[in-house]
């Protein structure tokens, strides 16, 4: 088959697939169970320790998914670290921009704190808050801080594992006292979730910022990380 014929074939096949998919999804939606998990989630929400149903799903009902997801983030940043030292970064910003950065970064950190706090009741939560922190890091790096405000080696390492570590610590502690892994005892869910979320926010922020910096943290003797 020639290149052009192959392209035509793929295009037609995908177009057909799109049609079939739409038909099938319509069938599923029209004949499907309508309610799905929404009523169950609403019914369980008061017992979840948080008011925002999405946060309840993420940190209580399906907390295990979130734990693995933080591990995915960790795996990505470990892979990035393994790929050698980062680029040198950008030239220091000019005065006007630097002034802006001086305002923007604290604002983003504040926003992160707010999102984290409000996430229990309203839209927001660890991911959004962590992303704000990371955004602060991105701004810093763009303005010429090569490490994007991240701490040096060892502390940076502690930060990126903090989310998973908090999850595991809470989960295993609960298991040890007889509640089952990640099964929050009644009445304690709220602060346990907040603890995990705080650690997760820091971890997400640090991890995403580190991913943006894109190289191993500067620890150990110079050049050691260069394979």
């Amino acid at each position, binding site marked *: 088959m020639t290149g052009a014929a192959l*392209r035509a074939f*793929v*295009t037609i096949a*995908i*177009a057909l*697939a*799109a049609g079939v*998919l*739409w038909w099938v*999804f*319509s069938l599923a*939606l*029209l004949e*499907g169970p309508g309610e*799905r*998990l*929404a009523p169950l*989630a*609403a019914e369980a929400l008061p017992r979840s320790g948080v008011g925002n*149903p*999405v946060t*309840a*799903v*993420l940190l209580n*009902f*399906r907390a295990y*998914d*979130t734990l693995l*997801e933080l591990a*995915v*983030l960790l*795996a*990505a*940043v470990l*892979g*990035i670290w393994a*790929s*050698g030292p980062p*680029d040198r970064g950008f030239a220091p910003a000019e005065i006007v921009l630097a002034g802006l950065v001086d305002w923007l970064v604290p604002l983003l950190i504040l926003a992160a704190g707010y999102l984290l706090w409000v996430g229990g009741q309203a839209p927001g939560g660890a*991911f959004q808050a962590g992303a704000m922190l990371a955004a602060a890091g991105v701004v810093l790096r763009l303005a010429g801080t090569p490490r994007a405000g991240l701490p040096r080696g060892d502390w940076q390492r502690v930060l990126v594992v903090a989310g998973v570590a908090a999850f595991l610590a809470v989960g295993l502690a609960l298991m040890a006292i007889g509640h089952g892994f990640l099964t929050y005892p009644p009445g304690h869910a709220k602060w346990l979730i907040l603890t995990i979320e705080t650690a997760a926010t820091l971890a*997400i922020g640090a991890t*995403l910022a580190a*991913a*943006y910096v*894109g*190289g191993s943290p500067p620890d150990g003797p110079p050049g050691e990380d260069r394979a």
Partner: protein
Amino acid sequence: MITALLYTAAGLLLFCLGLWSFLMHRPLLRKLIALNVMGSGVFLVFVALAYRGPEGAPDPVPHALVLTGIVVAVSATALALALGRRLEEAERD
């Protein structure tokens, strides 16, 4: 229901567009963008089927799944770009 159907269709179209682009382009960045568009398509399908009209509270489970999915997607993108950068360096040496 019509809203859900509409946005599901949009999601599926995004998925297929992304798939087409993924198969047709060679450069890494193109493929990554295509994958992200495909991912957005799937997320759109999830959020569309969570939608229960302007009055009803949406199903929070798909929202949570999509949030997870978004973080996974950005992780993968970041890793791919880091590998790509290192490949450039290796090819230059």
